[in-house]
């Protein structure tokens, strides 16, 4: 079984940036454009990795840590993620906490490298990033412990293994609420509309993107790739909730792939059909995620 986990792991590493391509293609379709090729992100990353390095005079080693720690944190976090019924590479009691805290480590160093430039725009982005994640993290963790309560298990792999038709029949409302929370967190953590707009051209309105304004060349390549990995990671949380009755790992991987495409399409549709929320409202949006997760938790008790 471990070998399949390994295959799926590398499959995700390869496939993740494609999700960003699918989102952009969907958005182009809704806007009536032809859009960039699906594989454009790969070309971008390869081009960026080969470009020269230009740094701000203000920056220090902390600036270099940001993109690298983020990538490493995501690579190690993905080893703990089960892909549907296929268990994670590493699974142990309480791995969900390490997962959430590893994402915290990534955020810590991203914010530090943004603050390192001394730019007021990046300071603004960092401040907002910390603010939003303060609200998103509890919702994520409460949802996980609700799932753990349902399955009476301690690790992510066994949590997702325990999600079957019977559980869905018994705990339908709670699970639907959790899927909703995961979707909100996916949008917020990946800086998508309605929380943030990755494509905006005004620094003041950006949140996550503004934090990486001064990164260029290979550093930006790493950041772009990490963005794909992060999107894949949060998508797997949602797709894993669906109780596929599959035991065959190959069919399982196919399902994982298809569901990731579905999530990307969904994000594209949301981005094309919604506007960004005003900043004040983002607090309400994320606070509602916390409340929904707490309701799900109470239903599970």
């Amino acid at each position: 079984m471990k070998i399949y986990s390994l295959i799926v792991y590398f499959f995700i590493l390869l496939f993740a940036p494609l999700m960003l391509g699918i989102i952009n293609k969907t958005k182009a379709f809704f806007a009536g454009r032809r859009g960039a090729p699906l594989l454009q992100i790969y070309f971008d990353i390869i081009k960026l990795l080969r470009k020269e390095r230009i740094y701000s005079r203000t920056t220090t080693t902390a600036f270099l840590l940001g993109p690298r720690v983020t990538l490493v944190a995501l690579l190690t976090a993905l080893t703990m993620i089960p892909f549907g019924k296929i268990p994670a590479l590493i699974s142990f009691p309480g791995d969900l906490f390490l997962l959430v805290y590893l994402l915290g480590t990534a955020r810590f160093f991203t914010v530090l490298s943004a603050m390192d430039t001394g730019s007021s725009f990046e300071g603004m982005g960092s401040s907002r990033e910390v603010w939003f994640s303060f609200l998103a993290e509890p919702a994520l963790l409460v949802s996980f412990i609700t799932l753990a309560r349902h399955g009476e298990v301690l690790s992510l792999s066994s949590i997702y293994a325990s999600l079957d038709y019977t559980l869905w029949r018994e705990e339908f409302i709670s699970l639907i609420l959790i899927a909703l929370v995961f979707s909100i967190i996916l949008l917020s953590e990946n800086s998508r509309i309605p929380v943030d707009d990755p494509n905006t051209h005004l620094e003041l309105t950006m949140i996550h993107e503004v934090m990486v304004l001064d990164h260029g060349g290979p550093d930006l390549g790493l950041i772009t790739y990490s963005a794909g990995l992060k999107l894949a990671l949060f998508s797997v949380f949602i797709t894993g909730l669906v109780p596929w009755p599959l035991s065959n790992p190959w069919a399982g991987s196919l399902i994982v792939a298809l569901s990731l495409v579905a999530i990307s399409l969904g994000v594209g549709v949301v981005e094309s059909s919604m506007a960004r929320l005003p900043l004040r409202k983002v607090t309400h949006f994320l606070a509602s995620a916390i409340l929904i997760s707490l309701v799900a938790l109470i239903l599970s008790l």
Partner: protein
Amino acid sequence: MNLILWSVLFLSLSGLVSLLPGLPRKTEKTIIVISIGAASLLLGYASIVNLMGAVEIPGGVRFLWQVPLGSLFFRLDSLSALFLLPLCILPFFCSIFGHRYLQSHGGSGRTHWFFYNLLISSMVLLLTAHNSLLFLLAWEGMTLSSFFLILHNHGIRKVRKAGILYLSASHIGIAALIPLFILLGKYWDGYDFQIGTLAFENPGSGIILILAIVGFGLKAGIMPLHIWLPEAHPASPSHISALLSGAMLNMGIYGLLRILSFFKTLPASWGIVIILLGIISSLFGIILALIQKDLKRLLAYSSIENMGILFIGIGTGVLGAGLGIGSLLILGFTGAFLHMLNHSLYKGALFLTAGSILQGTGTTNMERLGGLFKKMPFTALAALLGTHAICALPPLNGFLGKAALYLAYLRSITSSNTVAAAVSSLLIFLLVLVGGLTLAAFIKFFSIPFLGSPRAREGEKATEVHKDLYIPALILSLLGPLLAFSTPFLYPLLEKPLLLFTPISNPLLQEEFSVFREMLLSILLISTCFLILLAILFCIRHYRIRNRILDYEETWGCGYIAPTPRMQYTGSSFVEPLETLFRSFLHIKTDQSLPKEYFPKESFYNKRSADPVYKALLPLFKYLHFFIHRLKWVQHGRIQLYILYILVTLIFLLFWIL
């Protein structure tokens, strides 16, 4: 045990030696540092041997002492040994730091190191005292010596005020501890400590808990008993703040645990009380830390938060003991113990780096600093490691204590008890909230002074401090990763202190520990992968940039061509969104004159914040002061009349006995 008494004697004697007039500064320094180093080695050896022993060593050392109610009864049990560990590490590094630090800060000179050694020896005595009177004497010795250490720069009015506040707060604590031990003495029929003898069903047990929480909570800085703490820490020299925060606050926690260990079994309601206090301290402590501009005040409030987490851990253990839930009991206490050790290390390191910043720049106000990473690289490295650890982020040690608590809650959630599951989920939720705020507060703590560019003159003229200042901080912060990688192998040392609180069957203990071991080993595996991958990425970068000249340009300013450092985000603006969320109970006063017309004239915006608890308690103290003022005629300073008081008391006591 004898080793410890020898080391105490040694410490006190060398403290006395440092008082000798005409002793050259260098000799004094050598004597103090070597004596503390040697005592630390002895203490460390004794406590490690004690913790590694298979069973609790019965008995202790008793000396003849002609004092009514008291006896010189010393005993080192595993709980004392555990709390001795930070005392073997912190004082030594703080003393190296302090000698250099005081050279440029002046102050009262000689007596400083006498009181320093006295503080350490009284803390060691406190941990080993097994008699109520001895315990109280050591407690008072600790309070008084730390009072004099805080008053080091007593020429400054603010320092005197903080010192007096600390002294009065501590004596309110003593006022709770004396009746506590009298009450305990009634149950014991004597004043020697007796572990695991009392039943909580006794009528006075509730009072015992309340007195213990007031007395020891005051020392640990539990909210709302914390008001002395954020004043005393910034007022004292930095190595003293490090010692107070990393070692002395622990004594409050130790006191509470010691009282709990007197009981045969513990009720769940006590757990709830302790957890509630912990929640209040950790949540409000970190919110107040978030809005501080002074580095040392921020650290002081963060200590309140960490003490809150320790209370949550202890409360979880007590709750588990009361409800009979093994995971809460075992992993709750384990988490508290681990967190105590980790907190001592990283908070010590962070206070020392704050001291280095003060030394290198002349201020601890973060809004005047910036860009210190380039000017003080070693201090910055120590601060970065400490900040990383205090945010409880893997792969460093800060995460492990919290991980034990999380695992405890997760296990109780997945078991069937609904009440325990509800409490546990609530606690996970609160711990994550606190964690998010800690991240924000400490990103501010690190990034405002160290990153970006200098915001004012103080930041510009900064230079790296002397190696005696940054090396201790660096070593303390590097002990963090070391501890992180050795915890999976060392945690069984925590087994014996656990058994003091309630009888735990061995299979249960082994079951919980095996789950915890699995978690720790997997965390170790992932942390190792993490570090290896990170090293690989940096190697690739190194390989690709060799023989190339890197291009450096200005930071992108959105097309603006004349950016100034004053346009950077400040600490206050960084946390402004979070501050707005909690504005309702923060006392924030603004003073402003905003630009109005088309051609704006001079304008300003000034924001101050005060501790809401301090504000709330102020009227109470005013009343108290009013009444106590009436008694002032008793304290007139005339020795003859004081002798008369003593005489009258003695005669009264004589008649009492007759």
